[in-house]
């Protein structure tokens, strides 16, 4: 099967800044892809392009459709949760369900009600009365009841407490995600999606600076805990990054043979956070 999303040379410029500087990437079906980057790197612009919410230069195909000209058809197969939960404050929970049921051909009302029954949300409640966490629960219930092929999440757990955050991804994995579906997520809470992702993209200053499957990242990058006496030997292998912990040095290597690194010390898989920090060095400088 061909790629679900295929972008070539996407460009987007706002008045004084370049948001997307000719990015190209592919997303295959059945994957959970994390798009990670500092504030202002172009994440949200990239998602907006995919959703047909902004115009841009370059080639973009989402489910074989052009989001600029075929947005109606695209929206039948794509769901979206934004970082700003944009439900009108006067809307009742029941109205929201009625509305989506009325406009979306692939919405399963019974399924939505089943999800809502597991929360404290009541049909009569107005969005105004809901906490941020409850609004996200409502949003999630609406979205998970839509049989879409692509789900786009823009900072979905921003501002939620730990309980809601855990529940959010747990629900997605338990009741929504399967091999036919694809999720594209941006988040700053990298730790909470670390093991959920199948693929990782780093974006910086409108460019993709890393694009690989998590398996490939595990093979390509390695973190090695090195004693002081071997630090020079480690530096000779040109590490991406070095930091000190308890008199030992932790080196991050890119593409150095693991057998060669084993002689230096204990090898670990780098956390996404550490990979991110090393890759983004100098971003705000």
């Amino acid at each position, binding site marked *: 099967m061909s790629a679900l999303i295929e972008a070539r040379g996407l460009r987007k410029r706002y008045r004084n800044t370049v948001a997307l500087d000719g990015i190209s990437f592919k997303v295959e079906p059945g994957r959970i892809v994390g798009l990670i980057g500092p504030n202002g790197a172009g994440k949200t612009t990239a998602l907006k392009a995919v959703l047909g919410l902004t115009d841009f230069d370059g080639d973009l195909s989402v489910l074989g459709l052009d989001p600029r000209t075929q947005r109606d058809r695209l929206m039948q197969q794509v769901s979206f949760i934004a970082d700003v939960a944009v439900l009108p404050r006067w809307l009742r929970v029941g109205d929201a369900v009625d509305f989506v049921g009325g406009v979306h051909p692939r919405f399963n009302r019974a399924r939505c009600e089943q999800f809502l029954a597991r929360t404290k949300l009541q049909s009569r409640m107005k969005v105004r009365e809901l906490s941020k966490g409850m609004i996200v629960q409502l949003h999630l219930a609406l979205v998970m009841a839509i049989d879409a092929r692509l789900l786009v999440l823009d900072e979905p757990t921003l501002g939620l407490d730990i309980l809601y955050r855990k529940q959010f991804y747990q629900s997605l*994995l338990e009741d929504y995600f399967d091999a036919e579906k694809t999720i594209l997520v941006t988040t700053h809470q990298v730790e909470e999606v670390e093991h959920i*992702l199948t693929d990782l993209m780093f974006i910086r200053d409108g460019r993709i600076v890393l694009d690989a499957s998590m398996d490939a990242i595990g093979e390509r990058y390695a973190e090695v805990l090195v004693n002081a006496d071997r630090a020079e030997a480690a530096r000779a292998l040109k590490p991406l990054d070095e930091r000190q912990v308890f008199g030992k040095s932790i080196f991050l290597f890119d593409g150095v043979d693991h057998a060669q690194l084993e002689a230096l010390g204990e090898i670990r898989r780098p956390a996404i956070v550490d990979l991110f920090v090393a890759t983004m060095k100098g971003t705000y400088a």
Partner: protein
Amino acid sequence: MTVTWNDSVPIYRQLRERVVAMILDGALQEGDPLPSVRQVAADFQINPLTVSKAYQELVDEHLVEKRRGLGMYVVDGAREALLKSERERFLREEWPPLFARLKRMGLDLKILLREAEKLEESSR
């Protein structure tokens, strides 16, 4: 559920070890179903592919089998096979350094045997 994974071993290997431990200590009996891939993925907040990979290893080792449309089941004889390989592994990998340590400390096997009998006695 929050699980701390060890960064030096791939998660699918650690998951496999967990299932093996469950079979060894009887939490999973022969003929029991393994929890579904979806359930494990949701509980541990890990990708379903990671879970599938761990289960596939167990299938390759003939410890569990896939029953079409039903899921994964612990095969008959899995526990015995695991015990056998665990015993072999202990004798091969853990016993030699342990034995060397006992010798260094001057603990001879007769003393250990006597202590073992005492333990058996008190646990009865």
